[in-house]
């Protein structure tokens, strides 16, 4: 313990001033951009009304970065980019130069010093959204950063080229809370049985809150050896793990049975048909660190079918919508089972309520 308690720093500072963080050319032309041109994969040119132009170089980052690595990024940005850096929603690094002649030397620095690949623009696979996994979350059944590394090693060429029908966004989630989010292809952990309750420790949680959080109303209070505890009605439980997030004594994870599922066709943009949720493509893939080869193989199958079958500007969900799920399952070779048919709220809205059938 320190002897004298130091005075507290000011609270409620709010957000830093982004205008001070911007590259001077971006600050000067703020709100006055006119057009962009694709120079090559990973490099975009933006031209302002003033005639000023910037060249944006995009590189894939692993998101988890040591201070050493970040300082290396800063060194490069100081040399080439007047001391400014940006990160994208999908964890890519963006560096800006104003002279096209600096693009190649900058790329050379990024690839040789940082080891980051250039790409993630246009019709490519972008960097994979993920969260904490075994590095820092209290809930995961699988890893996040490692799964991304393993998969992006395999999909590296799709990141650095722009040769897909449209962009493909990936995500992974290490429990069924699904922090990774909607994506064209998402890899999510799946639990397979109700939580096991530790009746000895469960009292440490606020039991009514644990009961209240269950979306299936499957949890009810129970007395075990004179102590208040909980029980789970197994037929109602859908193994979502919400209770585990509320109370660690509701153990949902199981290394022997947890497996991975692949979901396809999520889209956030309102372009064309609008946003869409992803749908179940394959399940029961083994949780197989450090490389998860079965998952990589399944993702590759989806990408191959997409590349062969989709038209330009069709995202994965739009392509499947056009060719139909029958063709999707045929072309990927995944088996369609009764588990692919929704059984939750609004399931009927997902049934084929017409006589439109591809034969």
């Amino acid at each position, binding site marked *: 313990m320190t002897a004298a308690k130091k005075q507290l720093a000011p609270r409620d500072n709010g957000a830093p001033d982004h205008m001070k963080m911007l590259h001077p050319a971006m600050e000067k032309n703020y709100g006055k*951009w006119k057009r962009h041109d694709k120079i090559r994969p990973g490099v975009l040119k933006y031209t302002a009304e003033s005639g000023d132009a910037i060249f944006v170089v995009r590189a894939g980052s692993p998101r988890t970065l040591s201070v*050493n690595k970040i*300082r290396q990024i800063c060194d490069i940005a100081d040399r080439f980019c007047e001391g400014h850096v940006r990160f994208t929603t999908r964890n890519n690094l963006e560096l800006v130069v104003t002279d096209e002649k600096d693009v190649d030397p900058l790329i050379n620095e990024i690839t040789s010093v940082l080891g980051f690949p250039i790409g993630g623009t246009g019709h490519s696979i972008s960097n994979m959204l993920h969260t904490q996994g075994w590095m820092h979350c209290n809930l995961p059944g699988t890893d996040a950063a490692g799964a991304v590394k393993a998969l992006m090693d395999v999909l590296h060429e799709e990141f650095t080229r722009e040769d897909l029908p449209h962009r493909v966004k990936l995500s992974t989630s290490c429990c069924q809370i699904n922090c990774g989010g909607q994506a064209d292809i998402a890899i999510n952990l799946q639990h397979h049985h109700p939580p096991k309750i530790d009746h000895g420790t469960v009292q440490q949680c606020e039991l009514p809150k644990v009961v209240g959080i269950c979306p299936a109303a499957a949890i009810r209070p129970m007395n075990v050896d004179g102590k208040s505890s909980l029980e789970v009605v197994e037929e109602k439980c859908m193994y979502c793990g919400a209770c585990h997030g509320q109370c660690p004594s509701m153990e949902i994870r199981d290394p022997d049975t947890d497996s991975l599922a692949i979901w396809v066709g999520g889209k956030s943009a309102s372009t064309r048909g609008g946003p869409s949720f992803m749908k179940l493509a394959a399940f029961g893939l083994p949780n197989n660190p450090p490389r998860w080869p079965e998952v990589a193989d399944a993702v590759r199958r989806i990408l191959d079918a997409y590349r062969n079958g989709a038209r330009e*500007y069709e995202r994965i969900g739009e392509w499947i919508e056009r060719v139909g799920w029958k063709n999707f399952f045929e072309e990927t070779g995944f088996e369609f089972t009764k588990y692919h048919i929704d059984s939750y709220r609004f399931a009927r809205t997902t049934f084929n309520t017409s006589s439109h059938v591809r034969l």
Partner: protein
Amino acid sequence: MSDEPKTPLLDDLEEGPWPSFVKDLKDLARTKPEVNQLLGQMERSYEDRVNYWTGTVLNLSGYGGGIIARYSDLKEEFPDIAQFHTIRVIPPSGFVYSTDSLRELCDIAEEYSSGIMQLHGMTGDLLMLGSDNEQTHEAGEALMERGWDIGGSGGALRTLACCVGQARCEMACFDTMGLTKHLTDTFIGELHRPEFPYKFKFKLSGCANDCANSMQRSDMPVIGTWRDEIQVDQEEVRKFVDEHGEQYVVDNVVSRCPTQCISLGEGGIDIDDRNCVKCMHCINVMHTALAPGKDRGATILIGGKRTLKIGDMMSSVLIPFVKLETGEDWKCFTDTVRGIWEYWSENALDHERIGEFIDRVGLGVFLESVGIEPSPQMVRHPRTNSYIKFEEYAAPRAGGEPVKAPNIVDKDEQAESA
């Protein structure tokens, strides 16, 4: 270092073309030995497929969130990561940094944490990993001393996120970065002191491309749009058609418009703007020739969220169009938000996101309660279910007369007769 844990499974992830966090962390471990213990614990997870972190609560003085506290379950073996907390830091809007500011964060992370950062978390925070209880407080003070602030967690407003917007994108229909900072600063109390039924997230995208992933990841997406005509440069249209061929334009632009409002003729391209839903597709493809209109603003949506706990929910339209240019526009928006929070906070169940709440009370009731006029842009189509509870036909109360419903559907007529 004698007790450096062996990590054969993680070592495998040092190979391959994608940058390896394992390699980076091993390099960091030369000056930060606790990082070796982190890798050691992760290796154990890789072997056992079991997680070894327990979550707990830790708060900085004056704040009710922003620290993600973790205790290692293997603290006998890995004592240096017995407490290994994450601090959420509010980043500059749009994740833009000067290298000075990044270096400052690195110095703080190196001094008070393990020196691992994540740029960025899924909500949009900058994350600093690996402080013990005391260091967490010291890091918090050091950050705030230098003008940074702590992000949100729990039943609070969460750290906001936005697309790059006007900083470099010609599609941006409002100042995403500026409004993100304004909302953060205006609602900083709601962000730091959890008083909501559950979390509330804003994400701001300058156009329908939604680069901030707002639709499914935020309770209130703000998505840029316009209400006049798409700007067409017919000269550039002709160049585009010459370059790509007419068939390409028909296949990739005309026939892909969701409302079929584009036609291609001798004079170039013709757009039925009244029917355009501002989806951005044609502008994305022919970005040298087409641009969003000039009378710009945003559509405000509500209710999106990820799976937990009742399945994913997509946001839906709340305010079809607002201007977001002047301070007054922004004030009008923040006032609306306050009204919505008030109604939600008073009436929602514990852990009920606003989308779930709206599903329970009904969008119609919600709109009336927060003072927003219903409009057809809010639905795909009117109801198909014929069981309607008209308030005007409410059953007579004890001793009271039944109230007669106005048999009026035409508002103009209604106004005339009034």
